[in-house]
């Protein structure tokens, strides 16, 4: 009996291999799987097997039946789909598109900036957008009547409460609550009383950086900004620092990167200078350390800012800042 099962199995396998049309397949079905087929007859023969072997033999026949059935079904499917593919279907019709969700380009760029600084050892901090005059100005060495207040046209809620004009207040909040060593970046939204146009938005996004410890020098600041420029835009990009003035840093600098379009050779975008202004930086002014109760003899530090919107504009070649906030799907779908 077992011999017979083995033989039928062998035969069925051989025949299955040769089948190439539906008709041949149907013949095979009739031969093996139909009610009068070979496998059914095996079941009827089972009653002749001695009782103690019947279970084992029965199992073998069952196994054979299911093997042949599944091979049959497989072949049936593949013969069917071959046919459809060849005759009926235009594979070049458009596929069914899901909606595609995307992060905003400013989020993408900010995530990249955060990652670069995280790898350089910076921790992310956050601060409020509605700030007090104290944190936005006073503690940053910008007293009332200081001409530097004119540099930033401020939006006020009340006389003492305002929309922060920069992310620098987070420097103060962090230093008030932590002791050196400090190495943080603080990304966030800031506000200026500017009428919107292609290069101005009344709100935009900055990343503030602050490092305070013993033995921090201007050379460290140059090192970090240079490392950032190389990681963000490529290691051929040069960085230059120019003296400037901010009340909360001394010495103060503006820093420029090589134009990312011409890589420093000079082009229309950079007005042939080869440079692009990025933002401001400098060594933390001792008056700021005093405001937060740090020993300015013992500790030195540097701070820097950068505009996320500006960096994203450079990175993607965007020439109008308003595009970021109109949320036109034709814009958002490009990132």
């Amino acid at each position, binding site marked *: 009996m077992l011999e017979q099962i083995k033989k039928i199995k062998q035969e069925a396998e051989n025949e299955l291999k040769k089948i190439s049309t539906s008709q041949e397949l149907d013949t095979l079905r009739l031969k093996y799987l139909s009610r009068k087929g070979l496998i059914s007859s095996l079941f009827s023969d089972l009653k002749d097997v001695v009782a103690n072997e019947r279970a084992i033999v029965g199992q073998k026949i069952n196994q054979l039946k299911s093997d042949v059935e599944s091979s049959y079904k497989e072949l049936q499917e593949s013969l069917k789909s071959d046919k459809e593919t060849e005759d009926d279907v235009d594979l070049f019709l458009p596929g069914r598109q899901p909606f595609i969700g995307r992060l*905003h380009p400013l989020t993408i760029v900010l995530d990249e900036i955060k990652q670069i600084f995280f790898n350089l050892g910076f921790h992310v901090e956050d601060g409020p957008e509605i700030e007090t005059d104290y944190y936005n100005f006073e503690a940053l060495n910008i007293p009332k009547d200081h*001409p530097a207040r004119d540099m930033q046209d401020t939006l006020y809620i009340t006389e003492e409460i305002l929309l922060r004009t920069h992310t620098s207040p987070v420097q103060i909040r962090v230093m008030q609550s932590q002791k050196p060593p400090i190495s943080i970046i603080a990304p966030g939204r800031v506000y200026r009383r*500017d009428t919107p146009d292609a290069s101005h938005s009344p709100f935009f996004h900055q990343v503030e950086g602050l490092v305070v410890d013993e033995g921090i020098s201007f050379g460290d600041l*140059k090192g970090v900004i240079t490392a950032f420029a190389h990681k963000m835009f490529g290691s051929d990009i040069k960085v230059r620092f120019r003296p400037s003035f901010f009340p909360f840093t001394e*010495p103060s600098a503006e820093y420029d990167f090589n134009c990312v379009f011409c890589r420093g050779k000079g082009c229309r975008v950079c007005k042939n200078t080869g440079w692009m202004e990025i933002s401001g930086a400098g060594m933390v002014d001792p008056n700021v350390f005093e405001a937060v109760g740090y020993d300015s003899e013992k500790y030195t530090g540097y701070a820097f800012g950068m505009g996320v919107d500006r960096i994203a504009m450079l990175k993607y070649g965007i020439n109008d800042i308003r595009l970021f906030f109109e949320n036109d799907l034709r814009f958002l779908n490009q990132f």
Partner: protein
Amino acid sequence: MKVSYNWLKDYVDFDLTPEELAEKLTMVGFEVEEIIQTLSKFEKIVVGKIKSCVKHPDADRLSVCEVELPDNTYNVICGAPNVQKGQNIPFAQVGVSLPNGLKIKKAKIRGTESFGMICSEEELGLVEHSDGIWVLPEEWSVGEDVYERLLDTQDFIFDIAITPNRPDAMSMIGIAREIAAFTERDLKIPKINLVEDDEPASKLISIEIENPEGCPRYAAKVIKNVKIKASPKWMADRLTAAGVRPINNIVDITNYILLETGQPLHAFDHKFIEDSKIVVRFSTENEKFITLDEKERELPHETVLICDGKKSVAIGGIMGGLNSEVTEKTKTVLLESAYFNPVHISRSSKKLGLSTEASQRFERGMDPSGVLFAANRAAYLMSELAGGKILSGEVDNYLNKIESRKISVRIERINKVLGTSITENEVIKILSSLGIEYKNGKATIPTFRPDLEREVDIIEEIARCITFDNIPVKEKTSIYYENQANDKDTYLSFLKKKLVELEFNEALTNSMIPKEMITDENKDDYLVPIYNPISDDMNIMRPSLIPGLLKSVIYNLNRNQPNIRLFELGRIFTKINDQYESEQPYNICGVICGNTKNPNWNEGTATVDFYDIKGLVESLINKIFLDKVEFILYDSHIYFDKKSTLSIKRGEQTLGYFGKIKREVLNKIDIEQDVFSFEFNADLLFDIRNINRQYKSFSKYPYVEKDLAFVLDQKVNSNEIINAIARAGGSLVESVNVFDVFTGENIGHGKKSIAFRIKFQSYEKTLQDEEVQGLFLKIINKIESTFHANLRE
């Protein structure tokens, strides 16, 4: 500030091209934002001589001229009234293009032919406006190229951004001092050879300072017999180049000295100074004054006022008065040169809303020691250019002399802060080029540098002068601190990514929105208004992310982009207990409208409805692993329709809301489509976040599915039935889903039919039919009795 390249050469010899000079200035902290050439290129304009000039036979205003060039003579028609025989003029032949784009063609005017054009200065782009043709000097020879001839007068005007800490650099001499320092040349300060009259100035004027805290020094000179006329061309040109309009020689001289030295001066007509006396005092309450610009101004408290014996004549350091200004009739000039306290000038200027060349300098801090130099230099020019007689000496009220400051500076501190290795000798040399003496560890600061107060200020000067390029970059920066991710920041990024996975586009919208968009009656209780908004379109801080996103929706709808799924994560702002700054939570908000799917070639697509936003909210809750969340009916939301809103609760906490946006809200910004939205408080989501995921094994045994349908009262909450089914079935109920809902006459008015599919599964064994059947009956009994439901067969 506008600085003339040619004029700078009066004070320092340098051999740098304009571009090189601009680059150097920029790198020491004086950013040259623009270089403007005074002469823009024009071509092929030559000197011609007018050989004859007669009236046009048929036009009164036109002349017919013969213009002689070396090779030929041309007939030209000219409309300028000042054209005359014998003049040298700039001549454009046929075919030449002028800077304004005009191309000269052969023309016929009222029957007479014209072969070229006689040009004005305006037409050559040399001045803004000119009346008539430009008559050239006689010594220019016929046929000479006019542009070549003018090249000698070419100047380059630098537009320099002066930082507010450098009042000393708001002058030609100030900039020249910096150039002298980096070119290592001498600064040439103009010598003054005063020829003074015997009569002393003190005979015509006396000075009293009542409030020296506002005005520590006030000096005056008197110049008699001045002849008021126009300034000579060289001076007018220099003023114009610097952006100052020439007025008359006396006023121009005060402006010229302001530009040259930085020291603001004021010239009074001495005739109007009553009692021959100047009194400097603070303004009193509600005092008014009419300034030179003919405006009456109410003076802020403690404004420094310049008065004579009877009346006020100027706002000290800001603007002179109409009642004492120099006119063409002025004979005797009283020349003021003073030093005002920066704080008082700044305060008054801001409160008056009046910012002048003078106030901008005084509020940053002028040189108290430079007062007399400027006065004498101006007096000298008044004698030279206005024929004035300078009375001898000056009246100088300066009781408490402001001394040079001394600052301790440590060489090792310089190197520590900058990361350099500069020697003491280098420091001495650098500082001396800036006029600072460094000896025995102490720097003596000249009074023209009020910004240098501390050691760190000197360190900055050193850094600036060696230039930042020469500070070595520390390749291995010294941040080795242990670094940890910010949990909140990481969580907010996680939320954003989950919404992107749910096929939302991230938007960023203005946090300032129009108050008009808020329809709520109690809005004034919680809104945060902006005191000085840019426009009515941005006059409050957003109390929700919904209005901003709706603006983005209409923006896209207006551009034929109807299928929208946008979300934003950002702060919202509300006033709580009259505190504006206390609560600024992050919210996360999504809006959807249009189709549920992208249109496709063989499938229809439906418009989004409540169950789409609900499904998205449920998926989000699932994706961020929030448990124990309940949805509760909510009918008083500001933005959501009261019949289609659910609040999202976890225990007592409300995490957010979702539903259909109210029609009246949408009408405010002309959205006709239905819009659905959700808004969560992301701060709360962060607080209850469930980040420690533990793997839970799933059942290895087959499940059994059973369907059943009930006819129920329409008011019954289907979620309660689902919960009741789960409870009645116990732990073997794996899931309960709704697969069909309908209403209709055949099941009775006010009734609905809901069909459920219940999945039974055990973690321990294969379930037997009898066991499942038992649970199934138990469930049916429970639902029928609890909800007065009837099982549908």
